[in-house]
């Protein structure tokens, strides 16, 4: 399985976020996307899952399930945790497991893997930021998807949780999964490839008017 992007451009809010971006990512590889604030790391992730329209260029998935889009085979861990405060920890996870995959999911196992098993019946409103992030990570474990797209996965996590996340990511790569992580800080495991968005200069804004 391999994702390849050729000459990808993203256009948001009337400006070019990035352009001329090319990369490839194969099974078992971790691609670290780095860059200053506003360089377009989050936009790149949202472009890959189809939440932002591709302005130009191509994004293809080879050897994946031909019936499914990239987004349908991917997990997206964004800045927001997609949890309902009035539902319990287990109910939140059970909902996403049911929505993303109708098969049976082992909620208990996924919660134990992120160290939240004792809080399963607590309403999500009472979780700390780090615990909410861990509950989001449990979603990646409850439903199997080959592609993980992680946006600042280590933010708000303490040292022990960062180690645990690194272990989970390593296990995912060993199973043949692929990870694309936008990050500022160290992920705790070596990246197979690195994509520096600072080096990818946006194109000059298109000249106004149609005279040219």
């Amino acid at each position: 399985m391999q994702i390849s992007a050729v000459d990808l451009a993203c256009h948001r809010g009337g400006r070019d976020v990035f352009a001329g971006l090319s990369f490839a990512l194969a099974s078992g590889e971790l691609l670290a996307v780095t860059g200053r604030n506003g360089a377009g790391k989050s936009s790149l992730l949202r472009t890959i899952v189809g939440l932002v329209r591709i302005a130009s260029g191509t994004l293809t998935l080879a050897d994946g399930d031909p019936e499914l889009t990239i987004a349908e085979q991917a997990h997206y861990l964004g800045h927001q945790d997609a949890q309902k405060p009035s539902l319990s920890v287990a109910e939140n996870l059970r909902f996403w497991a049911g929505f993303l995959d109708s098969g049976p999911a082992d909620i208990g196992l996924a919660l134990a893997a992120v160290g939240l098993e004792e809080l399963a019946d607590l309403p999500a409103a009472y979780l700390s930021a780090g615990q909410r992030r861990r509950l989001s990570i449990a979603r990646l474990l409850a439903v199997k998807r080959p592609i993980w797209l992680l946006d600042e996965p280590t933010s708000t996590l303490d040292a022990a949780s960062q180690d645990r996340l690194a272990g989970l990511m390593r296990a995912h790569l060993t199973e043949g999964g692929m990870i694309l992580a936008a990050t500022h800080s160290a992920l705790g495991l070596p990246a197979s490839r690195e994509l520096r968005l600072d080096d990818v200069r946006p194109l000059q804004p298109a000249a106004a008017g149609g005279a040219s």
Partner: protein
Amino acid sequence: MSPLAAILVRDMRIAVRVGGGALMGVLFFLVVVTLIPFAVGPDLPLLKRIGPAILWLAALLASLLALDRLFATDHEDGSLDLILMGRAPLELVVAAKGLAHWLTTGLPLIVAAPLIGLLLNLDATAEAALVVTLLVGTPALTFIGLIGAAIAVTLRRGGLLLAVIVLPLTVPVLIFGVAAANAAIVGPVPFGTPFMILCALTLASLAVGPFAAAAALRQEME
């Protein structure tokens, strides 16, 4: 559990929990209808004549109440991103959310309507007619409202815009809902004529609402 069942169960659970919209809708309905006899005075024939219109108006406003948060909360906490990425068609997800909204907001109104109808001097025939028209008409209010909720999803104070968009669209439902209830009570038009049109309006909104709302959501999320 299928994706749509998961959405339905989750939305209903949230609605009946603390801070959910289910109880607020029916309480608002009861308060509005209860205020009318105080404002109009103890004129029983008048109350009986305007009773169906009052109950229908109150039901319309009550169904709008929880509607503006329908997609907005999912948008704010990032759930909508994952829903858009999901394998379930967005149109069906929207319809499932609409069904959950109707079950938790519309259905309690219909259960409460006969009780509150007593305050408006409605007899058994009138109450039966009212319950039937509400049962058929309130799904139309919800599914027309879905479109407005989807359009207003990214706005902070979407509730006001929602009312401005949705209320004019609900005018036909209101006209034929009240007309059918009145036809059963005072005539002279047979109950069937406006009632059939009400049924048609509901079926049309069930068919159009999810597609229009899903298209609006896709557009908004760009």
